[in-house]
């Protein structure tokens, strides 16, 4: 798709981007103004409306490869198919008649048209527009408003809109920040824009994980900045595990640190046999795999802390105390202080616990417990 020259849009076109705080579109005469043939009659009154031509269009004449105006992320919605099967097409799609006659580009209705094709329809009702009468930006704005009129944009769709406005329609960052980020329900800041522009480059597998709610938006934005092969490597690992939002951030932090420390890439880190083995271990749930992956990366990144924790657990076990006695160290062993707690429900349990503690006092593990780090 050729990129239109920057600043090629007239003021009147950009005025039609004017957006109020509540994201309500304002009428823009320059775009939707009256045309000579737009006289409709309704009873005794006449309404002057923009030209609207509705036609039955064969699906075979539509160019599905041309995604210039596409906004929707997922084109294969089962729900859309069900709706079409149940009640048929309610809202006509919008098509652009190409220079070549009888060949149409989709402006609005990608999901509807994909749905119609999948259920075997031949024809669609469409409002058709002529390419000579509309600029490409104007048409894309129609597509944006068409989508915004009835649903929230998913992050990847907002990313697609912003990416196209910048890279295919040549709009400046300032306009995107000031006008389009609020329109899309996003904070008008440059770094928000940068994050979404990166997001558009997210690997397909990671896109699926984001859509499924398995990958957080901040993780997705972060990974989207990496090269495609690195994203693919991360997608393979993350696809096998489930991580809470905070653990996800930690896993990425650890993997990035390790890549920097070892002068390798995230792919190399995630491709380590130990990580792959965790991902392939059928005995573990996805969440258990996530915790194990995190634990392994943490011990690689922080070997001395991990060793201290292991030693502490080993020495604690060496005391052979009953489970009712809990011993914990200072966080990160900053001081040698230990906290010892126990619960008892009877004098007998109390005596047994005290006896167990007295026995533990004579074990070398007790001294080592204070020196593990």
């Amino acid at each position, binding site marked *: 798709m050729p990129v239109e020259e920057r600043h090629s849009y007239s003021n009147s076109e950009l005025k039609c981007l004017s957006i109020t705080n509540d994201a309500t579109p304002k009428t823009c005469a320059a775009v939707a103004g009256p045309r000579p043939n737009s006289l409709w009659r309704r009873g005794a009154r006449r309404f002057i409306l923009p030209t609207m031509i509705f036609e039955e269009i064969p699906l075979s004449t539509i160019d599905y490869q041309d995604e210039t105006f596409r906004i929707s992320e997922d084109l294969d919605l089962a729900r859309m198919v069900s709706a079409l099967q149940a009640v048929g097409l309610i809202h006509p799609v919008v098509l652009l008649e190409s220079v070549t006659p009888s060949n149409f580009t989709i402006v609005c209705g990608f999901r509807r048209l994909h749905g119609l094709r999948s259920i075997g329809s031949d024809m669609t009702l469409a409002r058709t527009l002529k390419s000579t009468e509309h600029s490409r930006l104007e048409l894309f704005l129609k597509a944006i408003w068409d989508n915004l009129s009835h649903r929230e944009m998913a992050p990847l769709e907002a990313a697609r809109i912003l990416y196209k406005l910048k890279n295919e329609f040549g709009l400046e960052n300032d306009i995107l920040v000031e006008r389009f980020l609020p329109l899309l329900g996003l904070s008008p800041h440059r770094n928000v824009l940068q994050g979404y522009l990166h997001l558009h480059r997210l690997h397909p597998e990671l896109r699926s994980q984001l859509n499924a709610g398995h990958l957080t938006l901040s993780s997705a934005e972060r990974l989207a900045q990496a090269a495609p092969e690195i994203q693919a490597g991360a997608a393979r690992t993350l696809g096998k595990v489930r991580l809470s939002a905070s653990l996800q951030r930690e896993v990425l932090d650890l993997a990035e*640190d390790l890549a*920097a*420390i070892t002068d390798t890439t995230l792919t190399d880190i995630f491709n380590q046999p130990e990580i792959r083995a965790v991902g392939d271990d059928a005995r573990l749930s996805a969440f258990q795999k996530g915790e194990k992956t995190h634990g392994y990366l943490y011990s690689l990144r*922080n070997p*001395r802390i991990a060793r201290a924790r292991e030693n502490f657990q080993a020495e604690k076990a060496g005391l052979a105390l009953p489970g009712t006695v809990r011993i914990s160290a200072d966080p*990160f062993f900053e001081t040698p202080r230990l906290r010892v707690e126990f619960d008892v429900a009877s004098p007998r349990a109390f005596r047994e616990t005290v006896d167990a503690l007295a026995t533990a006092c004579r074990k070398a593990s007790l001294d080592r417990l204070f020196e593990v*780090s």
Partner: protein
Amino acid sequence: MSMVPYHPERIVIQEEACNDAATQEMLQRLPGIPVQTVRDVDSLLPELRASTDYRTTAKRTLILMHNRGSFMKECPGAGAEICCGYFVINYALNCHFECTYCVLQSFLNNPALTIYTNIGDLMGEVKEKILGSPGRTFRVGTGETADSLALDEITFYSRRLIPLFRSLPNAVLELKTKSAQVANLQALDHGGHTIISWSLNPRRIIRNEELKTATLEERLDAARLCRQWGYRVGFHFDPLIYYQGWERDYEEVVRELFRYVDPEGICWISLGCLRFTNDLKEIVRRRFPRSRIPYGEFVPGNHGKWRYFRPIRDEMYTKMQAMIREHAPRVLVYLCMENRAVWERSFGQAPSSTDELATRMDALVDFNDPP
């Protein structure tokens, strides 16, 4: 590479600072640089922060302005379990030395390099606070929000502060630096009331992490000069940076140090392991992708700062102290911003309190020529 001196590309003067003597003197020392006057320095902030690498580019702007707040404060380390009871004077904000780990990167609101020109107010406040507590000894430094001497060839403030402290019977000034700019210190009558200190690190760290600072040799040469001029000197191994082979490199620095400076001339040596904040880690990764600083084994500590896992700190302090003791058994070595457990594990003992450490340090201040 030798120290890179500071050369601003433009000077912005706050209107009320225009007629200050310090402003006029600095303008004379910086000829040919475009000068702009503004009423409100904050109005420059959007412009200064416009670049994606604004922490680098904004320093090319030198702002001369008044400080309307307090100049002299207790050192923020005062919140540590055992602290030396230090005071700091903020005569400037920011530093052009580009140390990768520098906390100023995440700390300063205004990313330009700012020098306060109401030096008379500064001196008045310092004098009032110090003379107002005659029973107390003040150890005061200027190296918290700027290097003490990096800008001295522009400000010449050392020539005002050293005589000021010479006149204060209960105070000593410590000028902490990574520079070798000591020319202004020659022939000043300091009366033992000024100590010149250097932050030291191995050549490898200076080369890779302290990008525009003086080399180790330049720093030690400058220290030797200061000794010749009768100043006592101090050294700060802060930040100590842990990496494979650190012992060999730091041992070399310690050996070099005592080749240049006699232990008798050293007032104190401090040790402090690297500390940084979450924000700083991200900034370092972005600004200095080749830096190894963010990749140590860190744990969260006091004041929201990260520091090395305690056994790493224990190990570094224990070994550093042994290295220093080999050359200078009697010099006071102390830890900066550390807790009691670390003192005890590293040195075998800890000061009973902040007061005890402060008293020991105060006793080391040798006013050889009382005013």
